[in-house]
């Protein structure tokens, strides 16, 4: 960061842009960092505009219209949508069961041992670190890998997908819940803890009034991600929209694919509406 305003002094001072130098330096530094990255990612926008690829994309997207509306396909689509919704809901519910206790242990906002010096301070810190590490391990391995592991034990089907979602998203919920609890005003909870209330009571009366909205909208967002992740789960034969999508794409059936994508759009809009409604309810 350079300090601006040290130079100048001629008549053009009034027109000098006070932030220009800093922004220019930032831009140049960014470009210098980006250059090897572009090489590694084989950045080549011209490939997108080549005559062959444009033709392929145009043909494929042309097949998207009109969306497939045959009755038997729609019946299949409805069943797949229900399956996906059930998997996402069950996975998110299990993730909540894993993530909420992890966050409760990991968050510094509800620590009694941090109030003052006393026995057990180091033990509590170690416990918090352990909970953070567990949630990191859970979320660092992508859900598809967990799904592949569970498929070996449980066979093809929704069980592997639900467990994989629960584990990965449980780790994410645990981390994000803990961060949200720490980023709000923690003084009410601390006051409660200092006057001898339990941790759960301090959570309910000190922290939740401030951050219930953020917590609930993040949870709904995770549910939305779980709906989209069903595409990933199509790989392990979990059924649902993912498998249907896989079949349609492999057969290059654009009409069916666009119908499925429209369902995704509708589900995402539903998740938005749900998130807004929950926020209003908790207002």
């Amino acid at each position, binding site marked *: 960061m350079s300090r601006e305003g040290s130079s100048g002094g001629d008549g053009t001072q009034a027109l000098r842009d006070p932030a220009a130098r800093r922004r220019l330096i930032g831009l140049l530094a960014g470009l210098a960092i*980006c250059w*090897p*990255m*572009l090489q*590694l*990612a*084989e*950045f080549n926008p011209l*490939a*997108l505009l080549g005559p062959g*690829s444009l033709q*392929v*994309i145009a043909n*494929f997207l042309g097949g998207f219209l009109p969306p497939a509306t045959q009755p038997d396909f729609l019946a299949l689509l409805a069943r797949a949508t*229900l*399956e996906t*919704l*059930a*998997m996402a*809901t*069950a996975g998110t*519910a299990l993730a909540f069961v894993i993530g909420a206790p992890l966050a409760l242990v990991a968050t510094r906002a509800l620590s009694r041992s941090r109030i003052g010096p006393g026995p057990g301070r180091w033990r509590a810190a170690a416990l918090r670190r352990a909970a953070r590490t567990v949630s*990191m391990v859970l*979320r*660092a*391995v*992508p*859900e*598809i*890998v967990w799904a*592949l*592991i*569970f498929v*070996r*034990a*449980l066979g093809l089907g*929704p*069980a592997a997908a*639900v*467990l994989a979602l629960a584990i990965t998203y449980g780790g994410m919920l645990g981390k*994000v819940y803990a*961060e*949200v609890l720490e*980023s*709000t005003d923690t003084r009410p909870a601390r006051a409660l803890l200092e006057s001898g209330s339990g941790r759960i009571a301090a959570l*309910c009366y000190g922290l*939740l009034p401030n951050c219930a909205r*953020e917590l609930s909208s993040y949870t709904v967002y995770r549910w939305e991600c779980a709906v*989209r*992740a069903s*595409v990933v789960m199509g*790989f392990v034969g979990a059924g649902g929209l993912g498998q249907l999508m896989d079949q349609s794409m492999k057969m290059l059936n654009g009409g069916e694919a666009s119908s499925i*994508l429209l369902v*995704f*759009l509708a*589900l*995402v*809009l539903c998740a938005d509406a749900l998130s807004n409604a*929950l926020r209003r*309810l908790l207002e």
Partner: protein
Amino acid sequence: MSAVLHPALPAAQPRCLRCWAVVALLLLATLASFGYLAIDYRALASAESLRLMGRFIAEFFPPDLSPAFLAKAGWGALQTLAVSALGSLLAAAAGALLALPASGRSGAAARLACRFVLNLLRSVPELVWAALMVLAVGIGPFAGALALALHTTGVLGRLFAESLENAPREPEQALLQGGATAPAAFGYGSLPLVLPQWLAYTLYRWEMNIRMAAVLGFVGGGGLGQMLYFHMSIFQQQQAMTVLIAMFVLVAGVDAASAALRRTLDTAHA
């Protein structure tokens, strides 16, 4: 939630009835989902499946730590890192461009149209974008980066537009009325207010994209995912384990780096 009510505090009775109704509905939906899927959870804990899972996991050990393969995995990790960073960067640029009309700066019609485009970009899953991009630019990391960028544009554009709408308008208005051009008024009146939050959102999405970049390799997006898919499909579990470890290190590193950077940005959690 209000078991103990202090007399000085307003009672929240009428709202809580609705709260409990919503909680009951959510519980019902969850139970219905478990019922619909009819998963046999006893099978998970049965000795047979535990043995199968244990044997499968045992095949992954010991990981292949030969220098040649480690170098390969390191290269894959770098590629995944580049794909995720490039995807997030392109998305941040495109999201910022779309966020301007989406925040209602050029009329209600443009706002609605841009919001629809953003929702469309967001609701198509990354894997589907990746499949399309592989058709467009061929198998390789660039397809993965484009797929991430398209999906993330939808997410970031919406978040950017929301923070623009929440930021106060007065500084920009003052500059405009003082005779500044529209880009200058935006750059010096509004951008400084929202930039920290935009950066925090972008870093946060980068964290998620590094994980997704690993998955995109499964459909030909390059990097660690492609290696993992390759080695798992020819049953080289020990090599796959090395790739998994590399993935783990990468995700943990990016998580820590982004969290540290976000903490210095002095904004509330994204």
